[in-house]
């Protein structure tokens, strides 16, 4: 598994790594609870069934959900690497995907972008809780991060994303990440975030200012079709914002990862149970 994913052709660069991991959940045959249907790790993307590590929105302390953690099998991604993760949350099932540690994105030994592409499909009546650790864009990295989530109209979802602009005291490399969520056939949320020397204006007051950490929580619930939680700027650097469709986004910038996590968690509390942790 590990060796086979080395030196694949995608980037054409010797030593570059391509990997594609697959994860799927389904409703158990007896109808009680969810189980992992597919768990295919690949090289650096190691998927492991797990127990709850800490508080979770929606699924806290529940035993009838499928829980999987993503662990890093190697350092990276490094420049030239191309990772992909495909997730399917089968009809009626609940999948919680967490992460063991932060993802440190590094430059490679040679020139070249690193890429990570994540696709998620959440089927009818299914629930997806995605609670990863931060992505750290280390100095001189050149990373493209692309997340596409397709929700059935009756699906529920909550995710957290956190980006750190470099390790402590370091200027970030080039990072571009896009998160696009569609529901039914319509776009619900589509945001790209770019920072690093390759782009202009990201350190201005319209985008990130002097923040060293930026993140958001996006929650989608079909119950919010007619009425969504009201907008609430709960801190000078953070706000809870109802989307045009049945979802909310909590956006925050902060001087460091701890402050960012604190702001996002505070935003989550504004939503009350079962979202708050």
């Amino acid at each position, binding site marked *: 598994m590990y060796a086979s994913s080395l030196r694949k052709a995608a980037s054409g660069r010797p030593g570059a790594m391509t990997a594609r991991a697959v994860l799927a959940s389904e409703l158990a045959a007896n109808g009680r609870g969810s189980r992992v249907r597919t768990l295919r790790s690949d090289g650096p993307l190691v998927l492991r069934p797990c127990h709850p590590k800490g508080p979770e929105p929606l699924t806290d302390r529940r035993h009838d959900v499928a829980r999987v953690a993503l662990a890093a099998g190697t350092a990276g991604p490094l420049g030239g690497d191309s990772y992909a993760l495909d997730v399917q949350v089968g009809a009626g099932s609940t999948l919680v995907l967490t992460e063991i540690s932060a993802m440190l994105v590094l430059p490679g030994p040679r020139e070249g972008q690193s890429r990570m592409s994540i696709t998620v499909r959440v089927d009818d009546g299914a629930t997806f809780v995605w609670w990863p650790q931060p992505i750290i864009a280390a100095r001189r990295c050149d990373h493209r991060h692309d997340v596409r989530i397709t929700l059935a109209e009756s699906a529920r979802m909550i995710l957290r994303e956190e980006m750190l602009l470099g390790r402590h005291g370091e200027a970030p490399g080039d990072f571009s990440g896009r998160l696009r969520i569609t529901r039914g056939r319509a776009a619900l*949320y*589509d*945001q790209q*975030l770019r920072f690093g020397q390759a782009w202009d204006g990201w350190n201005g007051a319209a985008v*990130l200012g002097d923040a060293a950490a930026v993140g*958001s929580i996006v929650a989608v619930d079909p119950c919010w079709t007619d009425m969504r939680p009201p*907008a609430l*700027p709960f801190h000078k650097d953070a706000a809870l914002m109802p989307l045009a469709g049945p979802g909310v986004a909590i*956006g925050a*910038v902060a001087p460091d990862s701890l402050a960012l996590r604190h702001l996002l968690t505070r935003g989550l509390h504004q939503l009350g149970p079962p979202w708050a942790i």
Partner: protein
Amino acid sequence: MESLGSGGQAALLLLADGRLPAGGYAHSGGLEPAVAAGRVADVAGLERFLIGRVETAGSIAAAFAAAACARAGRGNLSDLAELEAELDARIPSPELRKVSRDLGRQLRRAMNGIHPHPHFAALGAAPHQPVVMGVAAAVFGLGPRAAALAILHENNAGAAAAAAKVMRVDPFEVHAILARMTDRLDCLAAEAAKAADGPTADLPASGSPLTDIAAEHHRRSDVRLFAS
């Protein structure tokens, strides 16, 4: 790509002019809240603010104006609803969605008054400003690149003009920033016109987190000169 060299320049100047009675003067494009929060304090900060703004919200508005222009130019008005929904998805802040729709409604009212055309009736009750700008450009026979340039200039010059009212700056220094940004606006307009030919889902989506957060605070602020 269309040429700006043959005709249409006067119509482009008309659409991009801040004196068009379409309500733009009441908005600072997020500058007032950024100054109030202490995030913009000098001319250098203002320039970084304006560049960040055109590279994010500006590139989105430009692409959607160009896309609306291309579709209206082909008589494809039924595609405009999809553009509206895709633009909604790119604006997390409900306050900024409302501002965009308020400005769109006012621009349509102005266009209905000064240059009526059946296309304007095909827009919904409160269309987004870039979509109306794209349709207006098409109605004047302009192409996608001109539509993108019109909204880029209108939004950028509007925010810059607000600077003199919300911070202590020399107006010549402010316009020097605008002069330095002209090439950037041309590039963004060309990119927008290129994106307009592709699938709607692939239109730019560059986010501006601080603009969203500041807009939500601004709406609740007691003392403000500008609506946004």
